[in-house]
């Protein structure tokens, strides 16, 4: 085949620009840290990449949701604990009041402390997370007690608030002891009306009702504890999921730096070689050697 100067110089140009293209590709890979930058680089990687991103985003969102669940359950548990202590104190006071040795004056004094406890329990029942009443079911903007009087309740007060903590898995984060709270309140209200009228024997029957509601509080707390455990498990699972999803995404689309840098250096030396051979081949012609 006949080879001419213009063919040589054209080929040299073409090879050099191809070499630059490869250098550019490696440069892109190293600066962005990604194997692919557009769908046509590798459609499968890109499609998977979109999926993994969504997956990771989901896991992060669920972690955020779980944080909220912790917040609710811990607050509820703590509040019920405080209500329990208040009831404990109320029981002690009732034991004093139902003794035959207590004078009516003593009883009135005890009652005034009991009524303070009632207000305390009411304000505990009105506990808020942010601006949400935790014991109002889904009517989170309505307090269970308003100015010391129980609000009229409807079905919504018994409804659970469920949040998604994993694809398709929902956990109830609120507790709905609204009836229990009302019962407690009515016990206090009954005590208030009967304290100065009834006999000691009659008053001691309140002890039983208090024991009753304290029992119920404990049962409710046991349920919360069980849910807390479940959420902790879910949280651990989510954390490992996040690591897995991040790893998958990275394996799918991130470059291997050792490999990319090695490729770049190899390409660089090829490029140098191409430049130097090009410079040697293109220069001399017969003209240089003719007198």
């Amino acid at each position, binding site marked *: 085949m006949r080879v001419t100067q213009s063919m040589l110089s054209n080929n040299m140009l073409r090879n050099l620009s191809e070499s630059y293209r490869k250098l550019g590709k490696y440069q892109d890979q190293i600066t962005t840290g990604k194997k692919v930058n557009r*769908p046509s680089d590798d459609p499968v990687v890109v499609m998977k990449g979109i999926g993994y991103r969504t997956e990771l985003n989901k896991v992060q969102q669920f972690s955020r949701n779980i944080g909220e669940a912790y917040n609710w359950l811990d607050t509820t548990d703590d509040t019920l604990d405080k209500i329990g202590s208040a009831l404990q104190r109320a029981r002690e006071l009732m034991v004093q009041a139902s003794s035959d040795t207590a004078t009516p004056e003593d009883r009135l004094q005890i009652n005034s402390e009991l009524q303070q406890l009632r207000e305390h329990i009411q304000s505990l029942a009105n506990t808020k997370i942010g601006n949400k009443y935790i014991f109002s079911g889904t009517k989170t903007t309505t307090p269970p007690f308003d100015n010391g009087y129980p609000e009229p309740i409807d079905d919504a007060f018994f409804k659970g608030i469920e949040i998604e903590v994993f694809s398709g898995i929902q956990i109830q984060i609120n507790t709905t002891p609204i009836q229990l709270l009302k019962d407690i309140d009515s016990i206090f209200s009954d005590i208030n009306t009967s304290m100065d009228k009834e006999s000691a024997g009659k008053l001691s029957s309140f002890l039983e009702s208090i024991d009753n509601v304290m029992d119920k509080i404990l049962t409710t707390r046991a349920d919360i504890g069980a849910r807390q455990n479940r959420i902790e498990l879910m949280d651990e699972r989510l954390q490992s999921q996040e690591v897995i999803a991040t790893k998958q995404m990275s394996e799918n689309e991130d470059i291997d730096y050792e490999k990319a840098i090695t490729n770049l250096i190899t390409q660089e030396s090829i490029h140098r070689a191409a430049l130097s051979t090009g410079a040697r081949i293109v220069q001399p012609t017969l003209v240089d050697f003719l007198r």
Partner: protein
Amino acid sequence: MRSTFMGLEASKRGLYTQQSALYTTGHNIANANTEGYSRQRVNMEPTLGYPGTGLNAPKVAGFIGTGVKASSVQRIRDAFVDRQYRQETNKLGYWETKSKSISQLEDILNEPSDYGLAKALDGFWNSLQDLHVHPEDGGARTVVVQRAIAVADSFHYIYNSIQQLKENAANEIGITLRDINSVLEQIAHLNYQIQSVEPNGYMPNDLYDERDKLLDQLSTYIPIELEYEKSGGNALAIAEGSVRVFLKLSDGTKVKLVDGKDFAQLRNSGASTSDGLTPTKSVEGFKIVRVDEFGKETVVDKNWNVDIDNNAQIKINQFSNLGKLKSLVDSYGYDINGNQKGLFPENLEKINKLAKEFAEAFNKLHGLGTDLDGDPGVEFFVKNNSKDKEITAGNIYVSDTIINSPNKIAASDSGKAEPGNGKAEPGNGNAEPGNGNAEPGNGNAEPGNGKNALALANLKFQTLEGLFGVSIQSYFEGFVGQLGVDGQQAERLTYNAQTLQQSVSERRSSISSVSLDEEMTNMIAFQQAYNANARMITAIDEILDKIINGMGRVGL
């Protein structure tokens, strides 16, 4: 008897011929870097021997050489390689343009990245998840509204950008047609010049080169087929003659575009701008017209081209997938029996479908929920232009009602769970007619209920009938994937065509391009031959000197 001065004549011929070869070498060197130039060679041939034949020819030992003459100057070129080159150029023109169009689409979609539609949809999903955790929170609601606006904006951006690409493609079709028409005219003009030169026995090599360059250019635009017609008169046997250019259709039909000095022009047959070049609607096909000197256009008839019917319209599906013109039309969009096809229209339709199905499914679900006041959800996404039949990616907007009062987002499912109202018991003797909670609407307002928000969030992963049974997420993934696969194919075929074209181009250079070393060698050869001829003349001069001055002077 031969003439005394015959030797002078033979050597003079040698001088002249070597000189013209030397000049041609100079021409070659001068054009070493001219694009499309083919090296030229002086064909030398010995002049007729002496004596010539005839009755009164002298009886001497026959056919003494009388020198040399330059019979013709020929360019070195291989028509077969040209043909191959043009075939590959056809393919390259098609795939290169296609690859460019697809990569423009990829740029618009901007996937994989943190700024594309997928990311906007993810963000919207996040905000709805947050809303389902904090349904009564005004902040969470505002975020949902803003993220929804971001989703709508992403749709608008894609829609408008594809429209823009379409417009650009239309302009490029117009420019390409103008280029094709201009090339056709130039070829016809060159034909005319060649036809007037050749009958005189000349070889217009530089005109041939010019014409071949134009034919190369034409073959990037459309697939062509050539026929040559020899000139009459005193034309040389190796003269190429005028060229007839045909457009080759997919069924092998040939449509004549240039014939000698006559040429036709291409026009859009469908809706287009007043010059008939830039399409304004999907391309239907092209028509062939002839323009007279007053600029009047007439569609060609059977007298011009025997192969096509009278109306001279070429439907777009008669074009094979070759050349830049067809590729541009494929991108811009074309019309086959009322069906809109093409890269941009089809992708636009896909993104419109996605927007429509997403908005409709979302609205439907939103309508099932209740807002902060217990009212059923209003339309969340609306089309801003009431003239449009349905929601598209271009006209999807978040409804003003929602933007102005984010409390209208129906995050709760209370209406669904409790048809009728809270404690409403009609006819139970109470003085409360109708509803117990004195709340309008059919739902009991439950600010802490975020179930519908969750359902709205997870709509993204639900299969939709309208999207052929896949979810919004996977439909979009499929959309990007399809584009990627097409782009990859176009790139690969471009690369193939480029490699083939390069190797043919290499072969062509190997035959036709100027080698300076070769020219230098030739230069020395011709120069030395010239010198030798001159020396020959000196030698003859010397023998003549002997005859004239030295003879008949015996003893002097």
